[in-house]
């Protein structure tokens, strides 16, 4: 439990041996050369898990039938509803609202606030507590072209280039155009941004950016955003009612096929509630807890892809859902920190990635998928990974360079949470490097939306990590916090317009769920699962064996 093992300490000496020369070069602005566009493609094809054939198969049902997906996602989408639709009495209504928001992370809360400002009554269904989400975990920062030498034009180029030009251009334009408005909105809500004494925002580079536009709040940017938005939602609790531990399990449609509400499930009393609403927003976040291909994940406990399951059954198409972001720097040591995200800020501040010989093998700020591919290649093909005592493979992230480049104490000041998280296990990351390997981080694709977060179903909106198209097949750091707020607010505004021009629909139905269940039977899927799964199951085998009857 105490710091690095003697064997690892021995290996760290190799990192130390090359450090002075590397720091010297970095001071002069000399970098390890970045890959060319052609090399990027080749590296990705050969080493990125998304491009591997095994562990993937074709989807047999629904609007994306035929698409090749990771087994875990395919199985989830081909599962039956957890609802016995016959036993739900849809004539009973437990709650009504103008807008029902499903998921109280950044996107859902931003939408609730925007809709409330436009005069709506909002109900928010959420699985855990308000704010227990991926948003609260974001550390590094949020992008926005707010400085004079930058503009949404260059931000657009970075986003679409980083996404290998597979993004929806309209969504990228909305994202980058609104970014300064979002940063300004947050400032007005009293968010504690990192600023210079005169109030100017401190900004940094992130992987794949041509301008420094990463805004931050220590290394708790997402937590600070979530705290502020949640606090503001609580100030408006006359109009925004939050139902915690009550996840949605199916969307309700009306006779015209428009969104009409949802069925919620109280995780504690095991009751189902019917919520009727004029408009519905799915903002349930990502799918990290599916542990695709067995990878550990950085995601929160509730990231189980419920939103895409519910929308898919209602007939909404998904985009790029076969694309998963592996964050290049997940901790692999000590065992207690496995999967834990080491923010890109560490590399933004100058820390380099090194193999077991203490040598650089890639530019440290490639787009994330490329960077991950580089690390996997170095470990699996070049055989220059470091092996941990529990048999995990990884490479070094040389954090001590940061203090050497920016002055003593920078690590503690700029990365306080990371510093504490390792200090707990007696590793001082301002003196010793970290061991890292790619970890399952982000759902690149998701529900197909337009610039106003509308789906193909009238009255049904989607925003945040659960939606697709904004980042294409690869997302750059700092654009997701931005995405969830831009499209969350846009969804809230559009939903208000919609709710004002529409009456509450007629009879609510779950017939789309029955139809989907039938489609599964007809496709001959044997032993389908049950979804949404709501929470992952981490019981060990010896417990499962006894959980009989």
């Amino acid at each position: 439990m105490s710091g690095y093992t003697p064997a690892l300490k021995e290996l760290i000496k190799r990192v130390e041996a090359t450090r002075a020369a590397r720091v010297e070069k970095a001071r002069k602005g000399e970098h390890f050369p970045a890959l060319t566009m052609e090399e990027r493609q080749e590296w990705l094809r050969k080493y990125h898990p998304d491009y591997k054939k095994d562990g993937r198969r074709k989807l047999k049902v629904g609007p994306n039938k035929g698409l090749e997906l990771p087994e875990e996602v395919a199985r989830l989408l081909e599962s039956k509803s957890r609802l016995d639709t016959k036993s739900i009495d849809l004539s009973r209504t437990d709650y009504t609202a103008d807008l029902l928001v499903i998921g109280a992370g950044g996107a859902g809360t931003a939408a609730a606030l925007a809709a409330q400002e436009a005069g709506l009554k909002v109900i928010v269904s959420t699985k855990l507590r308000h704010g227990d989400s991926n948003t609260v975990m974001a550390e590094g920062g949020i992008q926005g072209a707010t400085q004079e030498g930058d503009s949404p034009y260059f931000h657009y180029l970075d986003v679409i280039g980083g996404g290998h030009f597979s993004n929806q251009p309209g969504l990228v334009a909305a994202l980058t155009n609104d970014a300064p408005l979002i940063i300004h909105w947050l400032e007005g809500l009293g968010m504690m941004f990192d600023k210079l004494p005169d109030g100017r925002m401190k900004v940094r580079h992130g992987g794949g950016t041509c301008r420094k536009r990463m805004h931050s709040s220590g290394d708790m940017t997402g937590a600070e955003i979530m705290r502020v938005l949640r606090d503001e939602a609580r100030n408006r609790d006359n109009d925004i009612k939050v139902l915690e531990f009550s996840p949605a399990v199916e969307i309700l449609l009306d006779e015209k096929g428009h969104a009409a509400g949802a069925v919620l499930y109280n995780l504690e009393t095991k009751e189902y509630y019917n919520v009727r609403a004029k408009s519905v927003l799915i903002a349930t976040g990502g799918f990290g807890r599916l542990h695709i291909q067995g990878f550990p994940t950085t995601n929160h406990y509730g990231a189980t892809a419920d939103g895409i399951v519910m929308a898919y059954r209602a007939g909404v198409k998904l985009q790029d859902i076969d694309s998963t972001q592996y964050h290049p720097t997940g901790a692999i040591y000590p065992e207690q920190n496995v999967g834990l995200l080491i923010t890109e800020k560490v590399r933004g501040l100058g820390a380099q990635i090194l193999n077991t010989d203490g040598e650089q093998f890639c530019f440290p700020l490639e787009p994330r998928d490329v960077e991950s591919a580089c690390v996997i290649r170095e470990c699996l093909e070049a055989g220059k990974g470091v092996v941990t005592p529990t048999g995990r493979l990884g490479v070094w992230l040389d954090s001590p360079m940061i203090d050497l480049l920016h002055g003593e104490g920078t690590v503690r000041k700029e990365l306080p949470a990371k510093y504490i998280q390792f200090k707990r296990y007696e590793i001082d990351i301002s003196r010793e490097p970290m061991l890292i390997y790619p970890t399952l981080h982000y759902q690149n694709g998701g529900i197909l939306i337009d610039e106003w977060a509308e789906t193909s179903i009238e009255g049904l909106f989607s925003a945040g990590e659960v939606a697709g198209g904004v980042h294409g097949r690869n997302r750059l750091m700092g654009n997701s916090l931005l995405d969830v707020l831009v499209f969350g607010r846009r969804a809230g505004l559009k939903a208000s317009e919609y709710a004002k021009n529409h009456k509450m629909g007629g009879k609510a139905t779950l017939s789309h769920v029955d139809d989907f269940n039938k489609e599964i039977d007809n496709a001959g899927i044997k032993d389908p699962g049950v979804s949404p799964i709501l929470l992952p199951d981490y019981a060990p085998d010896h417990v499962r064996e006894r959980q009989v009857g």
Partner: protein
Amino acid sequence: MADDKKHKTLTTGDRTIPPEGAKMIAIYIMGREYMVPETLTIMKAVEYAGYSYVRGCGCRGGICGACGTFYRYIGDYRLRSGLACQTVAEPNMVIMQLPFFPANRPGYDLDDFTGSPHEELRRLYPEVFKCVGCGTCTRTCPMDIDVMDYIALMKRGDLKGAALKSFDCVMCGLCASRCPAQITQFMAAQFVRRAYGKYILPKAGHLEKRVEEVKSGKYEKLLDGLMAMKQEDVKKLYVEREREPDLAEPGKWMPKETNNL
């Protein structure tokens, strides 16, 4: 399931599969004994024992504050505290999580204070000024925040100090659960941080300007231009874009090409 087996051999995600020969230790979850492998966090140990969390688990990464936990070692009078997802389970720990604690949180309007931020604090949280200085909160905080000190700074009207001192707060509520003066420290601190961010921290002038430009529709035109372009041309622009040097001073550096700013 066949697939499960295949994946197990690769990695374990978050399910604990102890390495062969792992040492087992006894822990006591709400008084009941369980044997778990050593070096797990309390959270993973509790799951290893067979519990599945509904409450008391959120981020699993030490930042959401869902997993505040009290514990004692058998034979030790001292009451200790930590986050279940961050604290390593040790032999003879008697563990109780506190997933929820009622907090006092009066509503307020950030845009409409009745007086100065300090006066507003006094109006909303008069109990803060009754702190007896016992230090229990500071000893309890799993984030090692000097809670008593930020309360003292609030009393004195040093809202900047209190905002910065309380910044790492994950709002787990453990401090409030132990306060003899019945103060909900972390909610008062949340108010103070927002008041500081809004009224004391200087505003970003460049942001104000940029917002005007966005509202004028200037960038929509530039972006429409990009969207109308052939992908090949956008690719070229992407590859040729100029990179701001890492150590450039914010607001001072300007690119060579300024047409699209």
